[in-house]
């Protein structure tokens, strides 16, 4: 039996097949509604390329600075050890000149 015009058109239309919703849609719609701890474990952050490059350069510079041997600096004087709280000027000053022979005695 010859198919009707409508049936033929219907059958022809069915030849255009379209896939179901992709998994990426699930991720976009439901992924944002997961608990914070899951998002923390499996989440991702989009970073613009210029920012990523700047961060990369910064990390490299920091790495180089940390790896470089440091110049030895002179020991600092412990100025905090000096305490002048009980400092009193002496009342009598006696000046004695000592020579080398006096010291030996």
């Amino acid at each position: 039996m010859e198919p009707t015009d409508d049936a033929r058109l219907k059958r022809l239309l069915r030849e255009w097949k379209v896939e179901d919703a992709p998994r990426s849609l699930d991720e976009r719609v439901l992924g944002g509604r997961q608990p914070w701890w899951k998002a923390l474990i499996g989440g991702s952050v989009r970073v613009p390329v210029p920012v990523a490059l700047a961060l990369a350069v910064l990390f490299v510079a920091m790495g180089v600075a940390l790896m470089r041997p440091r110049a030895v600096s002179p020991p600092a004087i412990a100025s905090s050890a000096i305490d002048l709280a009980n400092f009193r000027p002496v009342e009598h000053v006696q000046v004695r000149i000592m020579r080398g022979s006096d010291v030996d005695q």
Partner: protein
Amino acid sequence: MLPRDERILLTLSCKLAVDMTDADFRDAYRTNKDVLYRYARRMTGWATAAEDIVHDAFLALWRNSSGYDAGRGTMRSYLLGVTRNLALQRLRRDRPHEELDEDASVIGPLDIAGLERGEMVARAVGALPPLQRETLILAEYEELSLEEIGRATNAELAAVKSRLHRARENLRRMLTPLLETKGTGYGTNG
């Protein structure tokens, strides 16, 4: 379509949705996502556009679930209505020359030689005016009743019937070679 900040938006908007639980939302999503996606895909012709549109439709549902009234129709009809509005917005943006409100257009035969049969059909459906196209897609591919189509597209029953009739007439005209040859001589699938 918004950039991928949508996750943040979804999270922030959780507080606004009071009458729809997380389980309800997931259920509505799983039940309707494929219908909405296929509809948007056939309306726009692009997979990425369809994904954006369906995403935005569910985002709208989550933000304002009170907009859905079970007394006025099924969740599917409601979501199809939202998806339809978003798809038409997208078409207005992407194809400003196309007259969206024109539903009485008569289209002549298309130059579809050299294409596979599925591609020919896609080209022909894509050439229909949007109001005819959406009605045909919902009727032929998603097998919605005329009443459901009317609810989803916010149209009277008579308008739905008329658009469907015109869409089929246009398709017969555009696809005449395929209908006459019964699948031989064109393409590779037949």
